[in-house]
């Protein structure tokens, strides 16, 4: 039999469209318009999942986003998703879902043993045990972890796509119930740009399931008219299936739209979800309210649900969740549900905690043959996988005691209603302050902080007429505030069949004794927090709400306490005999509902995760087999292996090519800054440690920058192009940092200095050619006179290279004769290829960063960021020669004379030669005077750079060693992690061409 709980007619499902789906391996049928929850109930499936800790049988509690129990594993393979609320999953053809946190099956779950042993697992039990022996904690933990968790993570990459969107508007309205709709209507008619957001597939909210009228017309039809009108307005944008997730400062709202989640067909182009970032001038919160459960013994069995949920299943989905139904309530409103269930053929009883029940309601119950137990409470329930029996007893609310005989009733469904909690989550996130309302017995919005409006049930008002008028008027007011000419006011009357009287809503009514002993009174369903746990927390001193929350985990589940928070607080208030306002509440934090990671990541995945910055020659490198290195966001050729070469072979070949003939490096990634203005020289004098005033036009100079702490922070060659005009280069990784460093001082400190800085990094492609043949080679391609006399070292010339207007700098980072040719980037690859072609006869060899590193290390040139970190001064690097003694001031100078910077035993930059002439020391390995058998050992310093030098035929290393420059020639040891100890000798930092003749050839 299938759909045995479906009513003959009614509901807003499409009975013409049958949908097949699978739950826990079994096939079922539902209809278009069903949720997974409604379809399961229609098929008489009530046991849907197991609880977190005790593995109790759980069913479907609600019909919306607040569901704590019916959370399932949805979908298969890479598309599987844990912890999905069955109450929100729209049924689609082929849907597959399964219960979670149970083994081997939801029906026979071994974990439910925990329930039997639950008496030794109260809140916080793990703090009290598993401490001994400490070494076994990992062992215990293994099993604890296995038992915890809910669903399973997918184990394959997510195949779906997520998009994002920034959006601006006048007014965002969260909640498409009648309140939100009317506000939207008023603001929309007045011309505001409006964004209306609702998490459901259909607008209309709560009232869609009830009989009501607006201005004496059928309410449902009225809603449809409003919705149609809103859709017809260009200035109103409506997002259905969209949940407002976070409400941040400055009216910044994030929302998650389900774009194709509910579809059976996967889209090739549309995302699964779209993440909205919305900034609006005003925000209207019209989120309605969540019905509050009642707390009684074993109130968690499948078959027990919220009254409004029962109503929704019946009215919207045509599902009768039970035939013999008990309504357990403390308010009038829920009676509508009882009457409707009665109408649809269910046998009804009502248990009402109140002494005085509206006479009209009493009468109607009598007329319909509904047995009404007033001043009563359900005190226990029975039924293994579904509720089948309850006990009812009189309750004396003043004494908080139960009395009289227990009546036993058979039932297959309990509908409970403990009153309503306005959905204050977003309001609270926005820093709004709440107040406890002693009539509604719940928290309601009090003090607004941002430019916002709260309307409808969200504002704690449950009177339809009031809400209609208020909502519409607030829409108009908002428009007026935003300077729109407002539409006409309207007088609204609305009537519900039975409205929510604010008479008495009792959050908690059970005798204390009953709570602590024996059966479980659940407060937080998902996390298995019982009333006894709350008592225990108070008893043990976890009295602050925040302690109670963390000790018991109440409100920490995937529903974030939407159903449990207020009951927990009310119970604490009861225990301490203090008003709830004094108890307070925990902090509401984003998101409102669990929010997909992938949607927040958006398209910043795979090839779009982070930009790959590429030079103009990049494609050539790719085509020529370069292996790339990531330097910041840049991709730089690391080396260019030929067929069978590994990195060592390739680097050796590249190094020797440069030393013996001609090599070429793509140096375009270096930062380049054009500086101009009458104060530029003065400015450079402050920025660099050395002096600039004497630099001739057309000359280059190496400079070192320190931060104000006196530590090296960048270096590079700067060239004087004109009297007031310089071209500065920086390290690849430091380019942005240097630019903002310059701007910082120009814009905030030396406002009078006349200097303009312009970044030209990508304007120029830089081809660095190096090697004894570089002059000969380049001369063939340029009209610049490269002769020694006319173009000396550290000079700059302009001219044509390969017929392209170029800037050529004679500077060298390899120690060989070198030229850095700068051409506009559009010609970069052209010139590179020309060089490759014309350079054949010199065996021109493209080389990568590794070779560059080896070559400069052979010369003892530093790499900022490798040989230095942010804790070394120029003097530490033995670069006193570049620190001006004459200049009165430059950035960092003052810090050189602090006691610590003047310490004599600071680490100094030295060379290291391994005594075995074979071992290439690991970069980062540490140096000791004499190795001990075992750590700890006192360290003298560490190896900053280390390579095999092809030209020298042995390894070389650079290092920072305590007082190292005073220990040249002395022996030190480097203990490796594998236990080996390498001997080395402290040496000069220059290993090759100590006289520096090569680049002056």
């Amino acid at each position, binding site marked *: 039999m299938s759909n045995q709980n479906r009513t003959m007619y009614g509901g807003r499902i499409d009975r013409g469209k049958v949908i097949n789906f699978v739950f826990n391996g079994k096939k079922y049928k539902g209809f278009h318009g069903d949720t997974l929850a409604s379809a399961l109930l229609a098929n008489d499936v009530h046991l849907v999942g197991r609880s977190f800790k005790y593995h109790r049988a759980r069913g479907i509690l609600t019909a919306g986003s607040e569901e704590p129990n019916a959370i399932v594993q949805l979908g298969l393979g890479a598309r599987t998703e844990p912890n999905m609320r069955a109450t929100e999953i729209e049924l689609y053809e082929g849907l597959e879902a399964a219960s979670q946190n149970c083994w081997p099956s939801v029906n026979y779950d071994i974990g439910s043993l925990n329930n039997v042993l639950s008496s030794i697992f109260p809140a916080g039990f793990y703090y009290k045990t598993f401490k001994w022996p400490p070494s076994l904690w990992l062992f215990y933990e293994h099993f604890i972890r296995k038992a915890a968790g809910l669903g399973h993570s997918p184990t394959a990459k997510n195949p779906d796509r997520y998009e994002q969107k*920034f959006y601006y508007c006048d007014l965002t309205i969260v909640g498409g119930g009648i309140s939100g709709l009317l506000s939207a209507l008023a603001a929309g008619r007045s011309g505001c740009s409006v964004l209306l957001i609702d998490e459901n597939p259909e607008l209309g909210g709560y009232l869609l399931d009830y009989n009501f009228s607006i201005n004496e017309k059928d309410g449902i039809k009225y809603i449809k008219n409003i919705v149609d009108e809103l859709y017809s307005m260009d200035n109103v944008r409506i997002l259905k299936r969209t949940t407002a997730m976070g409400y*941040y*400062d*400055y009216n*910044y709202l994030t929302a998650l739209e389900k774009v194709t989640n509910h579809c059976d067909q996967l889209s090739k182009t549309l995302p699964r979800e779209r993440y909205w970032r919305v*900034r609006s001038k005003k925000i209207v919160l019209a989120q309605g309210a969540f019905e509050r459960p009642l707390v009684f013994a074993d109130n968690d069995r499948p078959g027990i649900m919220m009254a409004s949920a029962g109503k929704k299943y019946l009215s919207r989905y045509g599902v009768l969740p039970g035939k013999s139904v008990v309504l357990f309530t403390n308010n009038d409103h829920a009676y509508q549900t009882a009457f409707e269930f009665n109408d649809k053929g269910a046998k009804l009883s009502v248990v009402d905690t109140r002494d005085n029940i509206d006479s009209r309601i009493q009468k109607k119950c009598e007329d319909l043959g509904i047995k009404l137990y007033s001043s009563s409470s359900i005190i226990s329930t029975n039924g293994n996988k579904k509720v089948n029996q309850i006990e009812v007893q009189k309750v004396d609310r003043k004494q908080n005691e139960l009395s009289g005989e227990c009546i036993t009733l058979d039932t297959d469904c309990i509908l409970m209603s403990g009153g309503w909690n306005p959905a204050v989550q977003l309001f609270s996130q926005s*820093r709004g302050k709440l107040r406890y309302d002693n009539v509604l017995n719940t928290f309601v919005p009090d003090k607004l*902080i941002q430019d916002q409006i709260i309307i409808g049930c969200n504002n704690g008002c449950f009177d339809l007429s009031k809400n209609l008028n208020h909502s519409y008027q607030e829409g108009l007011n908002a428009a007026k505030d935003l300077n729109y000419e407002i539409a006409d006011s309207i007088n609204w009357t609305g009537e519900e069949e039975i409205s929510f009287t604010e008479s008495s809503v009792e959050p908690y009514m059970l005798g204390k004794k009953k709570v602590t002993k024996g059966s479980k009174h659940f407060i937080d369903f998902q996390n298995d927090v019982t009333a006894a746990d709350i008592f225990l927390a108070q008893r043990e001193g976890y009295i602050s709400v925040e302690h109670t929350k963390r000790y018991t985990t109440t409100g920490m589940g995937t529903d974030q306490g939407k159903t449990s928070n207020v009951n927990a607080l009310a119970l604490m208030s009861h225990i301490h005999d203090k008003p709830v306002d004094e108890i307070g509440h925990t902090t509401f934090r984003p998101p409102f509902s669990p929010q997909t990671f992938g949607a927040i990541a958006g398209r910043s995945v795979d090839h779009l995760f982070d930009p790959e910055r590429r030079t103009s020659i990049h494609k050539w490198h790719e085509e020529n087999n370069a292996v790339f290195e990531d330097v910041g966001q840049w991709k730089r050729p690391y080396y260019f292996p030929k067929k069978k070469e590994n990195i060592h072979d390739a680097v050796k070949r590249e190094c020797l090519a440069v030393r013996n003939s001609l090599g070429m490096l793509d140096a375009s990634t270096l930062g380049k800054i054009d500086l101009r203005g009458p104060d530029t020289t003065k400015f450079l004098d402050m920025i660099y440690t050395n002096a600039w005033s004497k630099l001739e036009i057309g000359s280059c100079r190496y400079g070192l920058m320190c931060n*104000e*702490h006196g530590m090296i922070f960048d270096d590079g060659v700067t060239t004087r192009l004109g009297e007031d005009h310089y071209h500065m280069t920086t390290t690849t990784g430091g380019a942005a940092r240097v630019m*903002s460093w310059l*701007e*910082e001082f120009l*814009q*905030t*400190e030396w*406002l009078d200095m006349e200097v303009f800085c312009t970044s030209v990094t990508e304007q120029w492609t830089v081809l660095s050619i190096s090697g004894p043949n570089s002059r000969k080679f380049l001369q063939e391609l340029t009209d610049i006179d490269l002769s020694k006399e006319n173009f000396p070292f550290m000079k700059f010339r302009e001219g044509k290279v390969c017929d392209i207007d170029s800037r050529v700098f004679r500077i060298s980072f390899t120690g060989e004769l070198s030229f850095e040719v700068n051409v506009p980037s559009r010609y970069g690859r052209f010139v590179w290829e020309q060089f490759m072609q014309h350079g054949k006869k010199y065996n021109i060899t493209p080389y990568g960063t590794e070779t560059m590193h080896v070559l400069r290390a052979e010369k003892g040139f530093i790499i900022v960021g490798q040989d230095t970190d942010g804790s070394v001064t120029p003097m530490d690097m033995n670069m006193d020669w570049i620190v001006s003694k004459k200049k*009165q*001031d430059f950035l960092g*100078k*003052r*810090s050189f004379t*602090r*006691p610590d910077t003047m310490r004599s035993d600071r680490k100094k930059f030295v060379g290291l030669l391994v005594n075995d002439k074979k071992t290439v020391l690991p970069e980062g390995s540490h140096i000791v005077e004499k190795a001990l058998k075992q750590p700890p050992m006192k360290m003298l310093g560490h190896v900053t750079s280390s390579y095999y030098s092809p030209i020298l035929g042995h390894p070389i290393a650079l290092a920072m060693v305590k007082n190292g420059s005073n220990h040249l020639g002395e022996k030190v040891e480097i203990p490796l992690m594998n236990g080996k100890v390498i001997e080395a000798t402290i040496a000069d930092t220059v290993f090759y061409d100590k006289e520096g003749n090569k680049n002056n050839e």
Partner: protein
Amino acid sequence: MFVINCPYCGERDQTEFSCHGEAHIARPDNPAEVSDEEWGEYLFFRNNPKGIHFERWTHDHGCRRWFNVMRDTVSDKIIKTYKMGDQKPGVTDV
């Protein structure tokens, strides 16, 4: 997530900007003459009030200008933005 009123570009999203700490800290005119203590104060010691804070921001993805912001560190509300070199507002200016 603030909306920041760049003195040059007007209101823009916070993500276009970055913050660089306390404003109105002048570099000593003649660093050579200040004591280690005074130099340390200049380098490291900062007002870190619970309340009104003056700080420097840059409009990185915009006009690239540095400017000052007066902000309450409790409510995170920006009270005022103003250009470099403009007079530091007093609490009464607000």
